[in-house]
């Protein structure tokens, strides 16, 4: 049973643990968008993201009775999502590199990655699109652990303390991974800046 009364999801979690499926549905609706962002930016593939997200919520549903409320529900499910995504990437990395499917459903072809403020300027829009493509290549070149901290800090705006709790590492490790990742990304995009 959830003990953390400061958890904004305390009531929903309590009801879900007692078997209220609608309560769990509300949790899915609340966090699916955020978790989609985490998984998509890590995997850079829509099909993989969809399948993984289903697996993540299925696992959370099965494991909910073991949730003791020592952290917030959001931190708990975010940890599940991060660990499952990292495991998936490590297995995928052992298989092969980019496939044709990845080329078609990958983030570099996602038209939503467009600077909304520059829609009226097609040239600027095209530059941003190309830059995002390059940035995606640079992100995929990072190790899974470095990509995770960049996704959580830079993309999702998570504080260092929360990232360290989720990944089970010290805040110092989070900061040093971020520093290294930023250096790597900068190096990868150096040719682009020089144009």
């Amino acid at each position, binding site marked *: 049973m959830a003990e953390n009364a400061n958890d904004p999801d305390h009531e929903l979690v309590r009801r879900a643990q007692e078997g209220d499926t609608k309560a769990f549905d509300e949790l*899915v609706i609340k966090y699916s968008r955020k978790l989609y962002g985490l998984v998509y930016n890590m995997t850079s593939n829509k099909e993989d993201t969809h399948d993984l997200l289903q697996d993540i919520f299925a696992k959370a549903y099965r494991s909910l009775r073991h949730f003791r409320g020592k952290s917030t529900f959001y931190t708990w499910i975010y940890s599940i999502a991060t660990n499952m995504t990292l495991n998936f990437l490590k297995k995928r990395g052992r298989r092969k590199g980019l496939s044709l499917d990845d080329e078609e459903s990958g983030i570099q072809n996602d038209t939503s990655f467009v600077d909304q403020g520059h829609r009226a300027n097609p040239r600027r829009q095209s530059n941003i699109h190309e830059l995002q493509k390059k940035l995606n290549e640079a992100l995929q070149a990072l190790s899974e652990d470095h990509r995770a901290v960049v996704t959580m800090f830079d*993309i999702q705006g998570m504080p260092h303390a929360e990232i360290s709790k989720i990944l089970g590492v010290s805040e110092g490790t989070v900061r040093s991974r971020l520093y290294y990742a930023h250096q790597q990304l900068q190096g990868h995009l150096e040719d682009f800046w020089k144009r």
Partner: protein
Amino acid sequence: MSTEIQEIRKLLKMRSESAPADEYFEDFLAEFHLRQRQDLMKRSARSLLMERVGVWIREMGRTKWMYGAGAAYALLIIGFFAWPKGNVPKEGVEPVSWEVPEQKVLHFEHDPEGKKQDVSPKPAEF
């Protein structure tokens, strides 16, 4: 922090605003419900089978002890015959004989010329 890294961080931040349309998440929830039902059915089938086996065993009453003893005895018999025995020779391998083969002993007489002559009995004399 260099301007390039600041620029990179701005680009990364833009990604947080990108997400599929709302319809995607409605369909996602519907698919999740379907999956929950399938998982429940699988778990129900398993737990139903276990429950039925349990009920069958309970309803047998005292005869369950006879069935249990019979099954244990059958397993013992099977195990006895199936267990590999240490003294059984392998096929195609002849057992070693303990008989000492007869050895042909050569008898030599001393010859004044220094030649040794074999005077062992001829085979026909055996």
